[in-house]
C-alpha cells in the first residue's frame, strides 16, 4: 500500500497539522518508507489470536464514582494561551 500526495494531504488534514506543498514530496517518501517496512507484518499468521490492548497484564481497577478534586479553576486556566475571565478563548466559530 503506497500513499499518494492526496492521501498525505488528507491525513494531515485529519491530524490538524498544516503541511506546505513543498513538504509533500519528502513526507510522502518518508511515510511510504515506514509503511513499506511495516508490511513485513503481513506474513505473520494471526488467525485466532486475541489482540493485546495494553501493557499491563492485570485487570484495570475501578474506583468509586465520586469527586476527589476540584475548585482550582485558576490553576487549570493558568497555562491558557489566551483567556477572558474564567473562559478559554478561540477564534470566532459562529457568525
Amino acid at each position, binding site marked *: 500500500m503506497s500513499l499518494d500526495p492526496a492521501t498525505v494531504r488528507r491525513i494531515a488534514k485529519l491530524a490538524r497539522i498544516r503541511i506546505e506543498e513543498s513538504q509533500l514530496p519528502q513526507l510522502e517518501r518518508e511515510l511510504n518508507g515506514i509503511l513499506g517496512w*511495516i508490511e513485513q507484518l503481513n506474513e505473520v499468521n494471526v488467525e485466532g489470536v486475541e489482540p493485546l490492548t495494553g501493557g499491563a497484564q492485570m485487570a484495570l481497577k475501578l474506583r468509586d464514582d465520586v469527586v476527589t478534586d476540584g475548585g482550582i479553576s485558576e490553576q487549570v486556566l493558568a497555562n491558557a494561551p489566551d483567556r477572558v475571565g474564567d473562559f478559554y478563548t478561540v*477564534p470566532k466559530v459562529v457568525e
Partner: protein
Amino acid sequence: MFSLTLAGTRAALRAREFSARELATAYLAAIEALNPRLNAFVTITPELALRQAEAADAALARGEAGHLTGIPLAIKDLFCTAGVRTTAGSRILAPFVPPYESTVTSHLLRDGAVFLGKANLDEFAMGSSNMTSAFGPVTNPWTRRGSNARLVPGGSSGGSAAAVAARLALGATATDTGGSIRQPASFCGIAGIKPTYGRCSRWGIVAFASSLDQAGPLARTVEDCAILLTSMAGHDEKDSTSADRPVPDFAAACARSVKGLRIGVPTEYRSDGMSPEIEALWQRGLEWLREAGAEIVDVSLPHTKYGLATYYIVDPAEASSNLARYDGVRFGARTEGADLTDMYENTRAAGFGAEVTRRVLIGTYVLSAGYYDAYYLRAQKIRALILRDFTEVFRKVDALLTPTAPTAAFMQGERMDDPVTMYLNDVFTVPANMSGIPGLSVPAGLDGDGLPLGLQVLGKPFDEETVFAVGAALERAAGFSALPGIRAGMEQ
C-alpha cells in the same frame, strides 16, 4: 565528592562528611561549567535545589534522614514539576509551567531528593539520539579514542544519561517507551532500568504511547538504580494501570546470588550483521554468569523479528491520540489563524518537529477508517504473540541476557536521512515494552574505539529483583571503571 556513587554519597551525608548544601552547590557549579558543552539540561533550578538541600540538612541534623535525603538528581523534562517549566523537548510546550507534580517526582521529593534541573530529551520522547529536541542536541560526554567528533548520548532520555555519565547528577529520572532508558544507558556507560509496566505511576508524565510508556531511573551503578526505583515505584490511585502491589527493597536484591538461576539466550537476537565486538561482549557476559553459578540455556522467541515493525504501528497510533490535546487552546503555545481549524493547523505545524509530525501522521493513517483492522488491530494481535513468546520462555528460565543496542554511540547527524535506520536502534529493547516486562542495561565493556557498550537483562513481570541480582552480578564481573572524557571533578 564526584567520585562517590549515590549509595556512597548517602552514607557520607548521613556521616556529615559534607552537607547537602555543599553537595548541591558543587553539582550546580559542575552543571554551570559543563552544560554549555553537553546541553544535558534544558532548565537549571539552582534556587529550588539549594532550598531543598537546606531542608535536607535540617532533616539530617534532626536525625530524620529519608531514603534520598540530600541526593541531587536530574529530572527528565517529561515529568511535570510544580512551578517549574516542563517542555517535553517541544516548542509546543515551551511556555508550559505545570501547577502539579508528577507522582514519581513527588515520591522522590517525599524521600528528600534535591532537583538540580530538567534534563533534555528527544521531542515528546520520540527518538533514539536526542537529535529531535527543540532545545538542541545533547552531546555524549564520551568520545572515540583520538577523535573529538560529537557523539549522541542515545535517546530519548539523552540529557538524563549524559548528566549522570558526566557526573552532573547522582541519578536521573527517565522514561522508556521503546528503549529510551536502556539505549542511552548503554551509549553513556551507565546503568538504567525500565521496570515492569505498571510499576511506576504514569500520572503527571507527558503522555506519548500510554500502553508502552514506563518511568525508571538512570544512575552510575545497578545498586543506585535500585535505590531510586524503590522510591519512584508504587501504586497510585491516579493511574489505573499502576500496579497495586508492594514495592520490594530493590537494593537488597542486588546482593542476591545468581547461583542456580537459569539464564536464557534468545537465539533470534543474533541478528544478521551484529558487530563481532557486541557478539563477543554478549558471550563474555554469559561466561561471567556461568562462573557465578548460573545455568545458560538457549531459548527461542520466534516473533522477535516483528517486534520493531509492530512497535511502529502501536507507538504512532497512541502518540497521535495523545498529542491531539495540543490544540493551542488550553495550554502550550498557540499560533493564530483565520478561524478555529486554521488556528489548530498553524499551532500544530509550528509546535511539532519533523519526527513528531511523522509519527502523528502515521498514527492518524493507521487508525483511520478502513485501515484500522489492517494495521492497528493486526499489530495488537502480533503484540499478543510477542508476549506469548516471553511467557513461554519464562516457564523455563529466570531471566534473559541480550545486548542492549546493536551499536555503540554514533555521531550527531548520522542516521538522520531515513527514519527507519534510526528506528533500528531499538531492535533489542522494544520487545520489553511490547510485552511489559522489565529490562535493565548494565555497562559491560568498551568497543575498539573506547566507547561503552551495555548488556541487557530481561526478567519476568514484577520480578525486578531477579533482574537486579543478575545485573549486579554482571556489574561485579565486568568491573567497568572507564570514565568519559567530559566529567565533573576533573581539571577543565
